[in-house]
């Protein structure tokens, strides 16, 4: 499964902000660390703000901070702000879906989609932060 660019930016931003709850982090800092477009990231941060996940702090030393509950917000919550994952709505039909071959293929793809959704909905921001800390301990060269 590949995530869209905006979704990846959003995940990086949330993880960066949630890892530093006591300070505001500027969009420029995040963009530089992950080598991503500041313009694009700014749009992503606005979307996250509308979703109530981040808050902009104005003024000197301003930036963004994560305002969700890291133990409750899941990867799926963040991803769904930008793209849909999981089984397609029942009404959606692609050419060939009504054939036996199409139905068999659809059954297999739905199994994958359901597992994807179950995985993403069970991993919270806090769990991701734990994984990141563990990764840093095991691979000190990771930034």
């Amino acid at each position, binding site marked *: 499964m590949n995530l869209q660019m905006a979704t990846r930016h959003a995940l990086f931003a949330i993880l960066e902000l949630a890892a530093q709850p006591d300070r505001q982090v500027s969009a420029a800092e995040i963009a530089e660390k992950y080598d991503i477009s500041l313009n694009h990231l700014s749009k992503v941060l606005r979307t996250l703000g509308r979703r*109530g996940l981040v808050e902009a702090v104005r003024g000197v030393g301003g930036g963004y901070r994560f*305002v*969700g*509950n890291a*133990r*409750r917000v*899941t990867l799926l919550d963040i991803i769904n702000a930008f793209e849909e994952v999981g089984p397609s709505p029942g009404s959606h039909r692609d050419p060939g879906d009504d054939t036996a071959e199409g139905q068999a293929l659809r059954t297999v793809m739905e199994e994958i989609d*359901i*597992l994807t959704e*179950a*995985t993403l*909905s*069970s*991993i*919270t921001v*806090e*769990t991701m932060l*734990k*994984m990141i800390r*563990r990764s840093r301990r095991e691979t000190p060269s990771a930034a």
Partner: protein
Amino acid sequence: MADDPDPLTPTIRPATPADLDFIIALDRDMTGIEKPEYWRGIYDRFGKGSEGCILVAYTDDRFVGFIVGEVRAWEFGSPPCGWVFALGVPADLRVQGVGTALFEGLCDRFRAAGVKTIRTMLARDARLLMSFFRSQGMMGGPFIQLEKELAG
């Protein structure tokens, strides 16, 4: 968004027969089905001998949860590993560290038994429970569960 409540620091110990009624009642509250015979069987099997382990958690003499696990060897070709197959914490006491204390207590038992992997199986829509186990560092393992409806 509201903060989570302060963490609890429960006492963890092996279950005794006196804990069974609390376990049965908590399981009933969680599943909607009271299964006293099942739990007495579980206690006879895992609570008394070396086959497995039932741990209970208490804070200030209040029962606040249980966990059940056992070491299974060579099932599905797997070397010995610890299985968690039941965990219960009252709904009003979740996300306060009780499950973590029980899980860590069970991990200690499994380590002492010489196993290096802990495993469980969950309904894929059991999001809260799956989130809990993932928060303990558990990831998808090398097995996939498959099933089929048998024709009558």
